């Protein structure tokens, strides 16, 4: 079974540019989560999709971040325009059931904004 895949693994962009991160969850997993870890801090929840619907986006930092999951399959997270403080590792996770178990994480995308 293929795991959760994220693309790209590393992205370096200039402040003010736009970046789009992609997450392909495990096939059949309705729940998809985005998390972020900035340097020196803990991994923080960003948002949760159930199929194509945003269940909870309370962790999104501001309106420069836009997440989509059209068709309930893969998801994208766009940052526009990127700021220096957006640098960090963005993780995606998926699960079949919404019970805290069975979470599978992707390897993350390391975003560096210079």
């Amino acid at each position: 079974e293929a795991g959760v895949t994220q693309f790209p693994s590393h992205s370096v962009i200039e402040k003010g540019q736009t970046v789009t991160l992609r997450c392909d969850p495990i096939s059949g997993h309705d729940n998809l989560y985005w998390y972020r870890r900035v340097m020196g801090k803990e991994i923080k929840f960003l948002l949760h999709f159930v199929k194509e619907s945003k269940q909870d986006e309370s962790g999104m930092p501001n309106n420069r971040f836009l997440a989509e999951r059209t068709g309930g399959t893969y998801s994208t997270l766009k940052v526009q325009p990127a700021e220096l403080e957006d640098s960090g590792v963005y993780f995606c996770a998926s699960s079949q059931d919404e019970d805290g178990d069975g979470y599978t994480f992707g390897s993350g995308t390391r975003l560096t904004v210079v």
Partner: protein
Amino acid sequence: EDKVVQSPLSLVVHEGDTVTLNCSYEVTNFRSLLWYKQEKKAPTFLFMLTSSGIEKKSGRLSSILDKKELFSILNITATQTGDSAVYLCAVANPNSGYALNFGKGTSLLVTP
């Protein structure tokens, strides 16, 4: 606000030693506590502890949950260099689609 605190932040031990990693939490609505191991990339699942499953064991790793005192420990016996990783503790929030609240992690280095 929910809080998860891990200690120590960093640990260096020799192969063969036993280590205990700590995780305390303050959450408004507890459902489950999870432990992950993160080597280079993706956090990989170790254990989930709930009210109905407060002790878990897998090989040299074991974990217990104390719901009264609001903490959990992860124990690794006879450590090996392959155990070197960051160990993450997280509490699932049922009020938020089981989004995970993470601690900062404990970085474990096992030296030969």
